[in-house]
């Protein structure tokens, strides 16, 4: 029942709604659908060239070409990145949030410091850690020397990718922690008091009081984070540029379309679609979760 008028005025909400809808269809939904189309063509970015439909050719090439192995490995890395970042980041964030969930001396300072990398940004963070991981006598190398080893860091096939994951977590841990902290601080002290009387403290208190209270928000957050992590590659751009086996699906889409040797839109779109399949799996999970919550609301 619309209370704000009748007749012509009745259409106002719809008219206004057209603004976000137009924006969405033009810049979001539309292009995404076109990606599907492109993936079945040999379109290139080079203006003036004709393109044709080539069916499943791009997909076939992806899985059967000589470099299919590398592509499959990139898929593996995408998943590895998404899971490692989301799980570790949230676990650490939760732990730290619990740690800070008390009146501590200087707690404002601690929280602010941990959130700082988010504000500094991906370029600053990436560059700072390149400085720290300087293999020619940088601080971390010095420490490793004391233990008798050394590493090539971002130039190493063994650890470059893990380092990227580390920097990503370092950057955004403070953000997750802030969310968790907010959630934790909403849990009434009384619950803990009551639990304490029943003998529940430390880990038990966490399992039976804390976690159930924040679980719903956590699940949604994690699902969305995984989807986000499957699509981000800014940190790869800033640190290794995809070299040393640090490429992921998302990175490959970018490189294939805007990269050094090709403007192969068709192939890039196909890679994007394959990426989408994985996103879809998590999307379905998230959607059904939303549905449940929607009903509850």
């Amino acid at each position, binding site marked *: 029942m619309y209370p704000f008028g009748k007749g012509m005025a009745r259409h106002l909400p719809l008219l206004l709604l057209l603004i976000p809808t137009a924006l969405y269809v033009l810049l979001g939904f539309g292009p995404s659908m076109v990606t599907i189309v492109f993936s079945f063509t040999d379109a290139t970015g080079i*203006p003036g060239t004709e393109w044709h439909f080539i069916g499943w050719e791009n997909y076939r090439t992806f899985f059967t*070409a000589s470099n299919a192995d590398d592509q499959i490995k990139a898929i593996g890395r995408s998943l590895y990145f998404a899971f490692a970042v989301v799980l570790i980041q949230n676990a650490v964030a939760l732990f730290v949030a619990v740690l800070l969930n008390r009146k501590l001396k200087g707690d404002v300072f601690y929280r602010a410091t941990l959130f700082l990398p988010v504000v500094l940004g991906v370029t600053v963070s990436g560059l700072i850690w390149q400085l720290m991981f300087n293999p020619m006598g940088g601080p971390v190398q010095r420490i490793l020397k004391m233990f008798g080893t050394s590493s090539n860091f971002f130039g190493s096939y063994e650890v470059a990718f893990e380092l990227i994951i580390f920097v990503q977590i370092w950057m955004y841990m403070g953000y997750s922690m802030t969310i968790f902290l907010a959630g934790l601080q909403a849990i009434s002290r009384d619950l803990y008091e009551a639990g304490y009387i029943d003998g529940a403290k430390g880990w038990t208190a966490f399992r039976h009081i804390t976690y159930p209270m924040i679980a719903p928000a956590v699940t949604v957050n994690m699902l969305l984070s995984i989807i986000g992590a499957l699509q981000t590659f800014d940190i790869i751009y800033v640190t290794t540029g995809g070299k040393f086996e640090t490429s992921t699906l998302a990175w490959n889409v970018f490189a294939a379309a805007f990269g*050094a040797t090709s403007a192969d839109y068709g192939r890039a779109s196909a890679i994007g679609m394959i990426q989408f399949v994985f996103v879809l799996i998590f999307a379905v999970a998230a959607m059904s979760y939303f549905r449940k919550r929607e009903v509850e609301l």
Partner: protein
Amino acid sequence: MRKWSTLLLALVMVFTLAACGGGSGNGGGKGNSGPSSSSSGGSGGGGGSAGDKPVTLRVLHWINEPVNKFMNDVFIPQFEQKYPNVKIEYTTVPSDDTYDQLMQTRINANDADIMAYRSAFVGAPQEWSPGAADPLWKQWADAGLIADLTNESFLSYYNPKDNENAVYYNGKAYGVNMGKVSFTGLYYNKEIFEKHNLQIPKTWDEFVGLLETLKSNGVTPLGFAGRDVWPFNLAVQGLQATIHDDQLAYIKGLWTGETKWTDPVAVEILEKAQVLMNYAQEGFMGLDYGTLPSVFASGQVAMVADGTWNAPTYASLNPDLRFGYFPVPGSNDPAKNAYLAGKYDMTWMVVEKSPNKEWALKFLEELSVPENYTAFVNAAGFLPNQDVKVESEFINEIMPYLGEFKLAWDQLFINRENVGQYANASSVHAEFLKPAGPIATAQELAALSQKDWDAAAPK
């Protein structure tokens, strides 16, 4: 409550207005073209008159300090002074993938007038390489995106042979090549060499002996910028140039099946590359190309793998540094080792659909005039494509190694499409070997490369 939302709305208006006003930086491809007086004859015609419409010429180039400096400090002001209505927007970005990406997006968005291409127009698929991908320049030429310069008079300033080798395709010239560089050698610190009584090695064995001497005297023999990978591959190409009898024949053989990645000559190259790595500075795989000059200039290593284009950088970083350059002696035959190979370096291309094409051509014309060209080549440290005298002591010193100009591996190699990582791009991947990478022996790597190569064979 009310004031809050009004303020909010006001803010949004302000920002949106500012965006529209400040918005579209350049003339977005729809600007007017320059004056209709096209003067492609003679050297540089007259200056622009005050009545000409203002033109912004967008020039793309990668970061190469000496050249950038020359452009920014000498040539561009000179050009702008002569033609006051033209403003040159000279954009430079790092010379790795970043530049390629920039070239791609700009030309696809028709947002550039002149672009520098990294090399001459090499690598077009041949009859013996069926199914190979077209290099970017060929795709652009075929699509009509880069201008045909065959009839431009300024081309005649350059040696016909160089033009033929560098910029001709299907009988037409699509660019202007600025000169040659060599990169299959090593810079060496003369002072360190003198201190340890070392001579330029003429054979591989001599070279290894030299490396040992340095190492046992506590000097780091070699410096590589492994992080960007290609700088290290310069040294590998040095090995290839002096070990292969005929690089092109070997490459053809790979396609036809006559030669293999696992042939003894190829394995030898990989093994020797591994030796080089073992004498390199610690953590060389983490060192990026930009930092390499300071490492050499500060005397931390005795030799570095780099190209002759960087000689001016070394000179300016440390004027006291005395350095030279010699080919990597890959074989034990001094005659074979006495050659430096390289490539034709930057080729200027004009974007065909550019609205400022007239002025782009004029720009190239000015640059090609022998007086300006000589200044350029001396600043850049290139080997000239015109018959001009080069001042650089450094270049003159290495002239004996140059003889009949030899192309390096990455200029000759034509790769198969979608080939796996052990055989892709334009060099052999010695960096997969220990200590840089995970593979222990050269044989292993060669086998993997052959496997990837075979799997990508055209059906």
